[in-house]
């Protein structure tokens, strides 16, 4: 079973290394931050059919989970931390994301056009 785990992690490393070179060039880069459990900006725009690299900065002291069902992202960001989210190419539309720990206030939209 250890072998299996090691293989899996090894494979993942290799895959990451292979893709890191090719994918970066065509990605659209976006960024947003979280402050007082709110996203800023609360609306971001991206071109359609392009892979997106989204950087999320958490300016709060408390951890947050950046989550979106349609974008298929679920990622914890430590208090005062920063993280990168990879989003698959999307067709035009409005995609909702939210902070799982403060859903009442932390809500935003990605507009793909």
């Amino acid at each position, binding site marked *: *079973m250890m072998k*299996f*785990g090691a293989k*899996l*992690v090894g494979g*993942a*490393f290799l*895959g*990451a290394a292979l*893709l*890191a070179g090719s*994918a970066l060039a065509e990605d659209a880069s976006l960024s947003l931050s979280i402050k007082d459990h709110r996203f800023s900006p609360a609306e971001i725009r991206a071109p359609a059919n392009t*892979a997106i690299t989204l950087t999320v900065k958490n300016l709060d*002291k*408390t*951890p*947050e*989970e950046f989550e979106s*069902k*349609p974008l*298929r*992202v*679920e*990622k*914890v*960001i*430590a*208090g*005062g*931390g920063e*993280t*990168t*989210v*990879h989003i*698959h*190419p999307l067709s035009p539309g409005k995609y909702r994301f939210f902070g*799982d*720990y403060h859903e*009442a206030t932390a809500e935003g939209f990605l507009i793909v056009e």
Partner: protein
Amino acid sequence: MLGALIIVFREVIEAGLIVGIALAVTRGVRGSRQWIAAGVLAGVVGALLVAGFAGQLSAAMAGRGQELFNASVLGLAVAMLAWHNIWMARHGRELSRELSDVGRAVASGDKTFLALAVVVAVAVLREGSEVALFLYGILISGESGFDVLAGGFAGLGLGALVSFLTFYGLVIIPPRRLFATISVLVTLLAGGLAAQSAAFLQQAGVVTALSSTLWDTSGILPDNGLFGRVLHTLIGYSDQPSALQGVAYLGTILTIVIATRLAAPAPRRVTAMSAPAE
């Protein structure tokens, strides 16, 4: 308070169900509870470590650390479940005969307990780290009072209740049927975990193929609601799965079913003849 309760409860349902299933699988076998308890304990310790080093984990491997870690531990759980099912198929004949004995002690069962303990530990670790971060956030923010924290802990208590209900729901099934039921449950559980693992690989950008969405039933049965969450764990239900998740789900189930068939010993004449004599 209710908000915190629901958030925490939603996170711990999966772990609660898995602990309940593991307890039912190993019921009555000497030493099995210790294995499951050890799994839960290891999961809690792991969850606190993961929560404590969330920032470092996230930054590891060019920002893909969190996803790759999740994908790996889920993959480990899938392997353990598959192995458990194959082992059960191979030794099922002896096991089901002994199931009727009161003080049965399956000497050779230790390895499968370890497999189940690992599965339990992984489930507790994954859900537990999110709960720990959420409760930690409440504690240090100071803006929400004691009642929110109490709600969080009430959610944890409800998760434990899910374990008990699952356990008692399963153990009322007659032993002969329980065996087949568990085998199906474990297979579907493994399929669902494999799909989750695939989702994390996609999120990390490691796999970019098959990213199209198969269907969207989030309007009818959202998988982050209570009922959706239970189905999510038990049969791997997802409201917006990617094609890769579908492939991982079906591929895992098919592999386990075929491997289990191959592992099951062919019915032997000797056993058939000796059976009526008992």
